[in-house]
């Protein structure tokens, strides 16, 4: 296993797109969260001056969503919007192998067919770890930056770190599957973005509001999106919203099970195909 990771690292470390992805994620995660945190704070402070009841309530109920321990949840939620950045890299890494025909050469040189897939899975584990580490650092920094006396509660809600990792791994696995099946980077990327950003959102709304079913929770991306529900402050006020939020939180364990099963199926499919097909 370690040998496989070492070889993948030989491929990745001089690949410019990898460092681009790394830099963009390292800029986007703190940037986006900082902007949202700052806007929220400003709105709250300005409205508080006007003594608007709503903002008073908001502050009472939620505090600052980027304070500990809420920062773990809030940062995870906003960072997870940008999964398409590492997804581009994942698709490039597999389609490159097809373009250069190294998916054949690696096997000719001595890897078994399964080892090739295992190596690619390791790539995705590593990329998911990198995004999780960046998210953790950003979340921690914002928690300290926006702190208003809650530092002692930093260790609450740490479960969002593994949840963020699993969500990244699950969604990047879908990206890998598309790249693996479609082979052409631009088509795979197009399908990934079009489906994840447009088609699935339409399906979710349709199933949720029009048909009033819970089937939307089984859609490939929504399944793992539900691991990190909309944070309380962004959900709105009122008893209905509070109930919905609580329900979403308590649904996390089941969504985790669905996600793990679905992601395992993706990889089983990749291994089976790799075993049988002509490379």
């Amino acid at each position, binding site marked *: 296993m370690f040998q496989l990771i070492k070889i993948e690292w*030989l491929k990745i470390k*001089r690949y410019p797109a990898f460092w681009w992805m790394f830099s963009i994620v390292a800029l986007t995660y703190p940037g986006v969260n900082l902007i949202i945190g700052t806007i929220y704070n400003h709105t709250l402070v300005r409205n508080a001056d006007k003594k608007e009841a709503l903002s008073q309530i908001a502050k009472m109920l939620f505090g600052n969503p980027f304070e500990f321990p809420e920062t773990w949840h809030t940062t995870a939620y906003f960072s997870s919007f940008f999964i398409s950045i590492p997804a581009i890299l994942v698709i490039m890494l597999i389609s490159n192998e097809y373009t250069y*025909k190294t998916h054949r050469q690696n*096997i000719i040189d*001595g*890897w078994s067919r399964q080892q090739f897939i295992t190596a690619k899975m390791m790539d995705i584990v590593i990329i998911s770890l990198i995004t999780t580490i960046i998210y953790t650092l950003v979340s921690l920094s914002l928690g300290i930056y926006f702190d208003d006396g809650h530092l002692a509660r930093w260790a609450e809600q740490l479960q969002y770190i593994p949840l963020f990792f699993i969500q990244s791994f699950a969604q990047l696995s879908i990206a890998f599957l598309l790249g693996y099946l479609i082979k052409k980077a631009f088509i795979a990327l197009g399908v990934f973005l079009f489906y994840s950003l447009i088609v699935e959102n339409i399906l979710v709304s349709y199933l949720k509001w029009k048909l009033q079913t819970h089937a939307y929770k089984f859609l490939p991306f929504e399944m793992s999106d539900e691991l990190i529900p909309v944070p309380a402050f962004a959900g709105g006020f009122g008893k209905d919203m509070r109930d919905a939020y609580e329900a979403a939180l308590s649904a996390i364990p089941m969504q985790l099970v669905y996600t793990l099963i679905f992601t395992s199926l993706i990889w089983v499919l990749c291994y089976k195909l790799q075993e049988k097909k002509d490379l």
Partner: protein
Amino acid sequence: MQQILSVNNLSKQYGKIHALNNVSFNVPKGCVYGILGPNGSGKTTTLGIILDILKANTGNFLWFEDNPQNHKTKIGSLLETPNFYHYLSAVNNLKITQAISGRGNENDIDEVLEIVNLSQRKNSKFSTYSLGMKQRLAIAAALLGNPDVLVLDEPTNGLDPVGIAEIRELIKKLAQQGKTIIMASHLLDEVEKVCTHVAILKKGNLLVNGNVNEVLANEDIVEVNASDKQTLIQILNNMSGYTKLVEEKNAIQLFYPQGTAQLDTINEYCFNNGVTLNMLTQKKKSLEAKFFELTNN
């Protein structure tokens, strides 16, 4: 004698097309085995199957009389095109080859790049290489770590005449060292110069295989000519011993069963019948002639 590779009844279909049809052959240790055939005859399909990147529909194959996966790393291969990471240099590409195959070590990388004359450009990116340089790098990758078996698909593709001669010498040298070399090619001249065994494929069928001398030399050909060609043909028609007479533009070819042609007898016969020959030579049938004979009908 140990069989390096045994191929048993391999068949491969792409939809309705039979790319390979029940092909079987053995590659003994230490031979240079040439797989020949026109374009689309199944050469690369055969090599693809024995290198585990294509799946045969039926049949099987053994490397070293054992499960192929156990022996992959003893085989240096070049299949179809040079496959490398475009954004990496020659050295960094070979580091990956070395790590995956476990053949050789980092010092061997410089050595194989020296053998194929790429040392000067070893730190340039693969994407900047010419076709010939890419092919040289692929040969270097196959040679890395001095493997006992080499599988080479069109090894001289894209090389200049000097490069072709160098590779031919290299293959001869490796064969002398006792390496087993399996080579696919449509350059017959090349194969004739280096191979000890050949297999000829046509449309997925194995037409003939075995020792190169047995495959080629099954007939003696004698070429004769005289200033009065018509008279010569008349008297030759009365001569016995040969199986076939073919009139060419500048000569008359007489075909004899292997080892039965005797030039002095022919010369004497013609002279006694009043014709003086101005040409009398014995030819070995070239691989090219044999190839056309086998693949054209």
